[in-house]
């Protein structure tokens, strides 16, 4: 059952490959807000060179995200597509890479899971806060 109210045709969900098991709330919320005439929802992740905390590397990273997209499509009845962004220094440039990806897909709503602000977030913003203050897209943060 989809919620009534505004629908979004081009949505994106940034995900941490090491925490794909925690993606369900964002997937469900995005599916509920998806416009049936819209484009597939973009599942996007940023990775750096070398081994990742997910234990995956190279093409296995793409495959893991694609598997999640396939599973989500089956469960929520909504099409998903994937984008793996490879950055030399994801800690520093990951947010900008996401914003470029959103622009490339003309995204109108970003749905993302976010943590409650921690001590370090007062010094440098977490991904959600960075996007909220730098991105032109609408942003839905889920906690």
């Amino acid at each position, binding site marked *: 059952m989809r919620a009534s109210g505004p629908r979004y045709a081009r949505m994106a969900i940034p995900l941490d490959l090491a925490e794909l098991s925690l993606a369900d709330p964002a997937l469900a919320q995005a599916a509920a807000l998806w416009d049936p005439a819209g484009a597939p929802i973009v599942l996007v992740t940023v990775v750096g*060179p*070398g081994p990742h905390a997910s234990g995956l590397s190279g093409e296995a990273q793409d495959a893991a995200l694609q598997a999640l997209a396939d599973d989500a499509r089956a469960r929520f009845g909504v099409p998903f597509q994937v984008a793996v962004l490879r950055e030399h220094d994801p800690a*520093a440039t990951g947010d900008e890479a996401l914003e470029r990806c959103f622009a490339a897909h003309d995204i109108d709503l970003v749905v993302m899971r976010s943590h409650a602000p921690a001590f*370090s977030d007062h010094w*440098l913003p977490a991904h959600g806060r960075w996007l909220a203050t730098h991105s032109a897209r609408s942003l839905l943060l889920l906690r």
Partner: protein
Amino acid sequence: MQGEPSGPLGDEETQEVPDYSSDYVVGQDNIQPFGLDIHNPVFVISGSAIVLFVLFTFAFPAWAAENFGDLRLWLTTRLDWFFMGAGNLVLLFCLFLVLSPLGSVRIGGERATPDYGYVSWVAMLFAAGIGIGIMFYGVLEPMNHVLHLPLGAEGLEGEARRSLAMAATIYHWAFHPWAIYSLVGLSLAFFCFNKGLPLVIRSAVYPLFGERIWGPVGHTIDVLAVIATMFGLATSLGFGAEQAAGGIRYLFGIQPSDGLKVAIVAVITALALISVLRGLDGGIKVLSEINMLMAIALGSFILVLGPTLGILEAIWHNTVAYLAYLPELSNWIGRDDDYYMHDWTTFYWAWWIAFSPFVGMFVARISTGRTVREFILAAMLAPSAIFIWWMTTFGETAMDQYFLQGFAGVADTVRNFQPELSLFVFLTEFPLSSVTSVVGIILVLIFFVTSMDSGSLIVDTMTAGGKIETPLTQRVFWCVFLGLLGAALLLGGGLSSIQALALATAFPFVLIMLMMMVSLFLGLRAERVLLERGDAE
């Protein structure tokens, strides 16, 4: 923990070839206090040890100065054979890899492509590593050696004297240090990007320790690497600020007060923070390229306005002299030139080795997509060629100033050991010396900024268990910590004591380097077999 290296591959034939990959997942031992993502216990132990060592040095300055000074003296005088022998062995091992079939293994897998072109790559190698040496020693060292000739060859005169002085200078900056950095960088790059192990020093000896490397042995190795890097960078920063203040006094007549020195550290730290926030490509890479261009411009200025033909001829002659003297300079047996061999060669070797975890890890981080052969050849030949060109240009010109023009300014800075002044005194003999001196100061500044930025990046990775996707706050923390450490050592004294401790870490690191050679050989040999069977990625 996940048992022994996952060697057995199935049938009897493949059981003999371990693949040296592990089920260990990067960051699996990390904890997340205050929104950080740090390795337990490497972050806490290394951070605490650094603070305690510095507090101890402040609390007992006389004891620290005497005993750590003795330690440094012991390292450079008694362990000459150890450091020089290890340096030679590493160089021979690198040459072996270049010539052997193992050199065809590609870092990052057979289909990997380089992330950076050669120019950017070499510029970053140079800026993060020992590039700053060209600013302080390009003029001073050749002049020093021509005044105090090594190898007991005091009787040499004329061209022969100058050739030996240049060969003795080039010897410290060419093949040996870059072979050391190549070994560490290559080992880390191979076990990280080919075998999927975390980007930390312990991964480079995985074949020898297996899964035990994720325990106390590995913690010890990584803590040592962090301490060596932090102390090495902080003391470089402190001494660099002192030297920069000396240069500013010479150029502008401003007295080098504590306030000025701390202000220099603060400016370098602030610029490094901006570079950190801009990331690897927007920060270090851009600054390295700017530095490379400025250095080329300054070097070309001297080449054109100096004795151009003489320098061009000398580049060839000095290269030949370097190669000819290489065996003699590399041999520690039967030598009586203690000043050169201990105060210069052994000190340099210990210093390069203490810096090898930092430079090696940074080299590894930017070096996927090249074969082992390309990696070693480029990492050894390109920086060596740059050093030969630079040292010849500045050294030969300075010697011309002294021997042919009777200008003793540079020689005086050597006699008084004032490396911070050599370049500026040297430049006064050229037109536009105020402009070129400012260019020199900017170059020094940028070299420090790139070193601090890359140092923060590497220390963060080391203390995050090899995790690259850490909160940027951590890198900012290490950058600020480095700046504070440098400033505290400047104000509280103890720069020499802490530098001696950084040097002392070279001793265990030689042992780790020897283990790295064995590990890398085993890893590459196994990789070759797996590639031939089509089992490797």
